[in-house]
């Protein structure tokens, strides 16, 4: 089953002679439960593409369907609900809330949604990600790899249909990067989630079921 479908998606910045084609006619389908890596030089449109999938940005032209919903048909408030229920984001700089503990950070999206946490599921996640004994700590007390693991747990907490990771290992050294990428792959596989990850690192891209190469806003392979 296709969970993400992009059809002729275009995004241009600037005007006339200064126009920058961030995305120039992207056609892409991503199947449910797979792990896709997006690679490409910086400025090739990777992040723009990911933001489109997550409803953080709207295309100038073309259509995006996520889990059977046309994103262009949603109003701003509906998009917010869409992101909350369907998408788990993992960023390069973790984006944890410094004044909340690890546990509160993980539960935060559930609280926004007003839904009750699934205790068994959350326990399993924190166990797998090695956060069990750090639930009461604050993010700044953890290492970079640790903070990113909290971000993964937070993204998984709402059981999203798709997980979007933008260079999740960008701020980590290669060892911690392998650790985090491995855990990310393992947890998404275990819970049958669909994962799209941007990376510079070809060794990490190898973990994916499929590698999409972007160049100047186009898919080259």
């Amino acid at each position, binding site marked *: *089953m296709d969970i993400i479908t992009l059809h002729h998606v275009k995004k241009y910045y600037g005007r006339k002679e200064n126009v920058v084609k961030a995305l120039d006619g992207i056609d892409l389908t991503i199947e*449910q439960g797979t792990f896709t890596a997006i690679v490409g030089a910086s400025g090739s449109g990777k992040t723009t593409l990911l933001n489109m999938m997550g409803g953080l940005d709207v295309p100038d032209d073309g259509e995006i369907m996520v*889990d*059977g*919903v046309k994103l262009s048909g*949603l109003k701003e*408030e*509906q*998009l917010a*609900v*869409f992101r909350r*229920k369907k998408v788990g984001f993992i960023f390069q700089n973790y984006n944890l809330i410094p004044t909340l503990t690890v546990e509160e950070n993980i539960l935060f999206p559930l609280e926004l949604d*007003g*839904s009750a946490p699934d205790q068994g599921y959350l326990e399993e996640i924190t166990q797998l990600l*090695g956060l069990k004994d750090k639930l009461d700590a604050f993010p700044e007390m953890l290492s970079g*790899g640790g903070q990113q693991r909290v971000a993964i747990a937070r993204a998984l907490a709402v*059981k999203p*249909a798709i997980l979007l990771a933008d260079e999740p290992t960008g701020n980590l050294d290669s*060892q*911690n990067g*392998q*650790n985090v990428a*491995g*855990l990310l*792959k*393992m947890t998404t*596989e*275990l819970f*049958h989630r669909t994962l799209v990850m941007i990376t510079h690192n070809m*060794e990490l891209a*190898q*973990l994916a079921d499929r*590698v999409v190469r972007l160049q100047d806003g186009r898919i080259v392979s």
Partner: protein
Amino acid sequence: MREKRDRVIRFGMILVGTVLLGGLLYTVWIWAPGSRIRYLLLLLCAGLCLLGLLGNLWQRRQICRFTDELCGTLDDLIAGRKPEQYSYYEDTLAAKVYGKLLQFYDLMSEERRQSRQDKQVIQELVSDISHQVKTPVANLQMFLGILQSQELCEEKRAEFLEMTAGQIDKLDFLMQSLIKMSRLETGTFALHVERTELQGTIAEAVNVIWAKAEAKDIRLSVECDSALTARHDPKWTAEALGNLLDNAVKYTPKGGSVLISVRPWQFYTRVDIADTGIGILEEHCHEVFKRFWRGEEAASQEGVGLGLYLAQEIITKQRGYISVKSAIGKGTTFSVYLLT
């Protein structure tokens, strides 16, 4: 019992309401000066009552509509259709219920899809296997046909018998691999993942390959601290590492070397198997783990294309993973990541 209680409560509420309303009207009638104000107040009271009644009816209709829609959605679910999700992304209570129902639907359809996919996998497997078995069986038939003909000298006969044995060995190897694969996939043989020393596991894997390496004059070396542990099933992990080592030795020319090194990390323990062999093209690094996949470079070597597939299956079943780094002509490094 409950119905009776509800009826009593409703009757009581109507009674109390009527008494209160009567009291109010009586008070108004007694105390209000002038008949015009009296009638006005009466009218206002009547208006308020009407409004309450209408509000009640409206609410009732809302609930009825909600229930109808819910039933419609449930009917859709029962019939296996995807319910219309027009209000799914609104922040209302109804949308919340729909959201949960849709989640349930997704779960069910995922299961259906999974079972369809499983069926397809089995069909492909059957076709793959028959393809693999076809050639040796055809060869065997041919050799037997030749052997049955009388006018063969003793020397030729021995040669054909040896070739027959070789084909049978190939079939046997294929069968053994398939049995291992099916045991892993059907889960009849559970992995006993426990935190144990890696050294023993690696030693077991190396034992199997030692003779082959010796014959090709390939130097095997192991760098592993005896205290290092990882969460793994020793028997099956040795099998997986053995497969990787077998590949390394197979595709490394005479006089080369194979190095096994172990590095402990925070979450994963990394076992590298580095050879100085022919290497794998970068675009094939992904495909080498596919079932029955054989690279063009590998055509000169015996094999059925199950070794790496099995190795990956075994490692992922233990929640680890494998990655490859390779340079053509220089060598290949397979890295196995096991949970620490």
